[in-house]
């Protein structure tokens, strides 16, 4: 099978005809494994949760493989599924954690910054600042500035216009700046 010569969209159509995760689906998985993993890791902020979410992404892609109609790029379809999966996992994880560790959470929030660490930003934990934004805003900033998605890609993935996407990212940046000022003060 000349997978290297086939586009993602052609492979997706071939995968839709397969009964199980056959050659075409595995080739697609090979092409997107790294980037889906990176996106999930950035959005989940935890290796175990990222693996769970990323594997779930590919299962969802497999389950919905016949629904891809080729109206958009396959990559947009993949990252849309990845985004929605991560947001779902984060919400369910948030609910679980709130139930289990309500008291612990209050103690963590009382500490404004980590003393050291790669995710320390001018004395303030960047993850902590990002976590105060809405899930969509946080995901937008991470996908834009950490993973380098273009505005066009983000607009398609988040199902909004490019101008609305730019506006939302700009507002999210302002909110992050505001959170930072409050944390430093």
């Amino acid at each position, binding site marked *: 099978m000349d997978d290297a010569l086939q586009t993602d969209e052609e492979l997706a159509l071939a995968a839709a005809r397969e009964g*199980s995760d056959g050659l075409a689906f*595995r080739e697609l998985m090979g092409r997107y494994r790294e980037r889906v993993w990176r996106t999930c*890791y950035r959005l989940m902020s935890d*290796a175990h949760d990222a693996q769970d979410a990323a594997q779930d992404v590919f*299962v969802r892609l497999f389950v919905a493989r016949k629904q891809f109609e080729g109206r958009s790029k396959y990559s947009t379809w993949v990252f849309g599924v990845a985004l929605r999966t991560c947001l779902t996992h984060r919400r369910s994880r948030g609910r679980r954690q709130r139930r289990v560790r309500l008291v612990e959470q209050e103690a963590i929030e009382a500490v404004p910054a980590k003393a050291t660490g790669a*995710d320390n*930003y001018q004395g303030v934990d960047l993850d902590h600042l990002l976590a105060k934004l809405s899930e969509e805003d946080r995901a937008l900033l991470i996908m834009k*500035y950490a993973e380098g998605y273009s505005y066009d890609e983000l607009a398609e993935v988040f199902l909004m216009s490019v101008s609305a996407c730019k506006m939302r990212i700009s507002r999210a940046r302002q909110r992050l*700046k505001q959170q930072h000022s409050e944390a430093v003060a």
Partner: protein
Amino acid sequence: MNADWRHQLQDAEVPPVPETFDQGVHARVNHFLLALHLAEFAVRGLPAAAWELFRATADVAHTSPPRRRSRPPQGGNDIA
């Protein structure tokens, strides 16, 4: 401030894809397919099998000749 947090986001280290990643996906897909086939079997296969069994039984009952009653032997007529 802006450039700093952007650089920090970009520079944050991402570990490599776990070695068992593909096997995990394959196992999950297999579980999904197994569940799908079992559900399909329960929803479509079993009712279809029950219906076929019912039809076959009904056909047998319908086409079988009626059972003859056994008559008591009448003694002494047939032997001279």
